[in-house]
């Protein structure tokens, strides 16, 4: 990456640009959630009748009696101090609740991203080698199907077939509860739990990546520099690996980056279906429990994660394409 402009200052600049975005996300989520019906205090206290004075005391303890803009201001200044609020339900600081869930989400997301990228690229390349052949048509049909299937339905079907009917894989959770496993056994246990949710989460993105990689490879194969590579007497494998692939990857990398945001959306469904203890399920649960501080916190953290992954993807793009410099973009 020996280009002008240093990587560090580029990263710094990108992060600074992300701040206004994060602020907007915070304000928007805050406003939206406080416009929603339902009283968080009610869900905090529960269904049984409580004395009016107690309810008021709770309200003021959580700052819910103040005007909305004051609450917003407090919320923002607290975030800057690293305080995302206090969970009504867990009775813990929101940050602690979320941080506890981050590893599980990463454990699901990272394999899903890698798998969808790798499988998408390989199938796409293979598909483009012989366009409109039987194998290409098969892969393209699969991609169309994978693109259309709703994630929650796919997740339940996978669970039904592989866990309930065949009993090959566990259906719920991130690991076998109560089992004291160590070393490789623990790893294998986690892997078996990961398999179905990661698959459910990736299929759609495998499909997207296959389609983009295929068309990108085909497009590149008509480029003049491929004719030059042929005229050099290079063999087909070298031409594909050395000349087509690095060029065909460029648009795909961009799409993978944009897709990561949608992957988070998918993870809400997948984590819920498979009882995966990550941020996605936390989001879902905190909606049910009207645990607004946690809900807003998960939105914020998700946004931060999306911004960071997009930055990483952009860095990969910069590294792949010598024509783009750190200064631009």
């Amino acid at each position, binding site marked *: 990456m020996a280009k002008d402009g240093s990587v560090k200052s580029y990263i710094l600049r990108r992060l600074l640009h992300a701040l206004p975005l994060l602020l907007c996300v915070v304000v928007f989520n805050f406003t939206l959630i406080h416009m929603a019906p339902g009283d968080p205090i009610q869900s905090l206290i529960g269904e049984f009748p409580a004395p009016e004075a107690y309810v008021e005391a709770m309200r003021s303890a959580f700052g819910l009696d103040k005007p909305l803009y004051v609450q917003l201001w407090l919320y923002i200044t607290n975030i800057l101090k690293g305080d995302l609020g206090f969970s009504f339900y867990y009775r813990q600081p929101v940050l602690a609740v979320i941080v506890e869930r981050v590893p599980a989400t990463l454990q699901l997301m990272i394999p899903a991203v890698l798998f969808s990228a790798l499988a998408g690229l390989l199938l796409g390349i293979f598909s483009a080698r012989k366009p409109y052949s039987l194998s290409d048509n098969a892969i393209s049909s699969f991609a169309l199907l994978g693109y259309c299937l709703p994630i929650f339905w796919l997740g339940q079907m996978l669970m039904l077939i592989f866990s309930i009917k065949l009993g090959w894989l566990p259906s719920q959770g991130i690991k076998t509860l109560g089992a004291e496993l160590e070393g490789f056994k623990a790893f294998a246990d986690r892997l078996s739990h990961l398999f179905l949710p990661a698959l459910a989460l990736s299929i759609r993105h495998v499909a997207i990546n296959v389609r983009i990689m295929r068309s990108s490879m085909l497009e590149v194969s008509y*480029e*003049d*520099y491929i004719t*030059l590579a042929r*005229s*050099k007497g290079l063999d087909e494998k070298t031409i594909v690996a050395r000349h087509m692939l690095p*060029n065909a990857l460029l648009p795909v990398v961009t799409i993978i980056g944009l897709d990561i945001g949608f992957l988070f959306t998918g993870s809400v469904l997948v984590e819920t279906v498979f009882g995966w203890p990550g941020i996605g399920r936390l989001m879902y649960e905190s909606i049910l429990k009207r645990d607004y501080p946690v809900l807003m916190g998960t939105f914020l953290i998700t946004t931060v994660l999306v911004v960071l992954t997009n930055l990483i993807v952009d860095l990969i793009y910069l590294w792949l394409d010598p*024509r783009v410099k750190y200064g631009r973009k």
Partner: protein
Amino acid sequence: MENILLDVRGLKTYFHISLGVVRAVDGVNLCVSKGEAVGLVGESGCGKTMTAHSIMKLVPSPPGFIEEGEIWFRNTDLLRLGEQEMRKFRGREVSMVFQDPMTYLNPVMKVGKQIAEVLVSPTRDRTVIKLLESVGIPDPLKVADQYPHELSGGMRQRVLIAIAMANDPPLLIADEPTTALDVTIQAQILDLIKTIKTEKGTSLLLITHDLGIVAEMCDRVYVMYAGKIVESGDVFSIFEEPLHPYAQGLLRSSLSIAEFRENLETIEGTVPNLLDPPSGCRFHPRCPMAMSVCKEKEPSLIQEKPGHEVSCWLYEKDGRDRNHS
């Protein structure tokens, strides 16, 4: 003949597209002897590039297919070779310099690497740096480490020439090597090709639409029109007395461009559509000398003078008898 390096016979390269069949190359005969520089001229779209790509077997397929013909390189008919055997010819026996230096280099690969990968066996004299030097690149160490977009058009064309000449092939095909370049750079690139040719004795098939370049660079020339060769001969004879009305027009227009710009003379009409070429002689809709027979029957290639062939009814005995319409 012993001396012949490349002999193309009856080459037909067609494109099968949804609208029909494009007869881009329609029965081309052409040969290049050892050490000879041969020009291939014609208007844009007449099939020059596809002739060259057919020789290298680089026609994009589908939609393009070499339908018929033989392409003899020394004692081998390239059209009979499998892809794997053909690869040994490309870049070693026959190389090509392309029209547009901007698009023919891989944009994400360093220039040095793009040269290195064609070298069959790097030796002390055949290194990337030596090659860059030999094509007149001033700072070869730096350029080898640069990406194509960091180089000017002229520099990129030099790099492409370095790639083509890396293994000293006996035959170099240059497809309008200067068309995309500035006028000042054009002369430099032509000089470079000339130098290479004299120093290495490389045979040259030079494709151009500029007769001036042919006059300067070539020993012999083929005039192509709508997928066919209509006239061929040594450069001197053709410039002295072009026989085919198309060649006559081409020469007049190139002279008028050079000498009397305001009085520009061009050939009337447009290049025919190769999907549905005109009947008989393909030039008849534009030909000032057209006779009735021209519309009906195709003239064959006849030798009018030693080494000077033409395909036109004006020169066929029975054609002339059939009078003017």
